[in-house]
């Protein structure tokens, strides 16, 4: 009985790590790093995380988890509540829908996929916030944020791959 319980707990702990890691990235994104200019163009780590898990383990990142992550991000950074929920859900939906073009493909393909999805998400964010405040938000910071995210993507991707191999390999795709 006991080993079964432990292995179940272990299984659950492994299964919630994708969600847990993404929440952690949302929190890391708002830490005051005191690097000049960085806070405005902080890479979109939560978006990368949702994208990567949607590609590799969509069963471990259910729709309501994506909803919660978007909600947390909106409440923390002060954007109108709903903006990040909508973009994250759209990213998630698009990736899961088009997953057959991404899963098992070389890293370059996944990177290009991210570049498209992140561009869509950034534009959607910009449109939603601009519509909400009925004012055109200056897009410069967004462009830098997007480029920085593309650059940071391989790093997070590599870390998550290590994580998957270490903890999630037995869960299957």
């Amino acid at each position, binding site marked *: 009985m006991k080993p*079964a319980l432990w292995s179940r707990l272990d*299984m659950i702990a492994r299964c919630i790590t994708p969600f847990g890691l993404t929440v952690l990235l949302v*929190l*890391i*994104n*708002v*830490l*005051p*790093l*005191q*690097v*000049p*200019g*960085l*806070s*405005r*163009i*902080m890479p979109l780590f939560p978006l990368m995380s949702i994208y990567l898990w949607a590609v590799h383990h*969509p*069963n471990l*990142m*259910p*729709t*309501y988890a*994506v*909803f919660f992550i*978007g*909600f*947390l991000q909106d*409440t*923390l*950074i*002060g*954007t*109108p*509540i*709903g*903006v990040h*929920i*909508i973009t994250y*859900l*759209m990213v*998630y*939906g698009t990736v*899961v*829908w088009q997953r057959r073009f991404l899963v098992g493909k070389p890293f370059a393909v996944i990177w290009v996929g991210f570049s498209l999805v992140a561009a869509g998400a950034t534009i959607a*964010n910009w449109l*939603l*916030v601009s519509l*909400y*405040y009925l*004012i055109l*938000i*200056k897009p*410069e*910071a*967004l462009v830098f*944020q997007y480029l920085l995210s593309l650059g940071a993507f391989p790093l997070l991707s590599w870390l998550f791959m290590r994580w998957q191999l270490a903890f999630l390999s037995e*869960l*299957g795709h």
Partner: protein
Amino acid sequence: MEDRSRFTYRFTTPLSGLAQRFTFLGLLIVAFALMLIAKADVAVMERLRAQVTDSVSPIIDIMSRPISIVNDAIVQINSLATVHERNENLRQDKERLMHWQSVARMLEAENQALRAQLNYIPGPQASYVSARVIADTGGAFVHSVLLNIGYQPGVDKGHAVVTGEGLIGRVESVGGRATRVLLISDLNSRIPVLIEATRTRAILAGNNSNRPRLIHLVPGATVSPGDRIVTSGHGGVFPVGLPVGLVDAVNEGGISVLPFVPRDRLEYVRILDFGLKGIINDDGLDK
């Protein structure tokens, strides 16, 4: 066990079944609804936001501590390298400031004498509360920071938030454990200011860049780069004379202001309480 995990896997594979698609669409609709509610009823969403922020602020507080330790260490090492140069600069500064001190004493005495002659009623005295910045919740859309204190006397919506160098913003919302400060560079920030030398009134409007703009100046007002901008106290929210920044550039695009406090250097701040309520409690005027 094997059967069960296969079952769970099949059941939770997203968007495969009709139910999953409905969940997806349903949540998307909920998200749009939340946005509309936020637009229609600001207060409800602000309360919700404050509650969520309260519940995660202890975690962010702990996470931000190592960063401030590392930053302190970097500053220490940097200052070691320039210690001689700084010493010399400080000596010169001290000489200059001693001169200014004597000037200030003289002016203070003169000021008191003049006030006594005019039966001047002094403005309210400020009390303040210090707090640590635990999150720079930036991004490209919003310029705000979270402080590690919650509701207490002296902390209320609309209070000015300053560092030793000048104004950084105003309290936007107060929760049980965290306080959100809207920085002067945020899109929604409008601060009544004065050009110190000419006493020309204007509004400092944030535009989500590091250079907020001066708007609503009197036609024909003269502004030149380097002019000091201070709060005007109009609207009864902020006291008069808090330093804000220097005029950075004047051109066709408008007048941009370089704030005295760079956003990236915020660590400890003070919330000033002048006992002023002004227009800030009227939510209609708050935006």
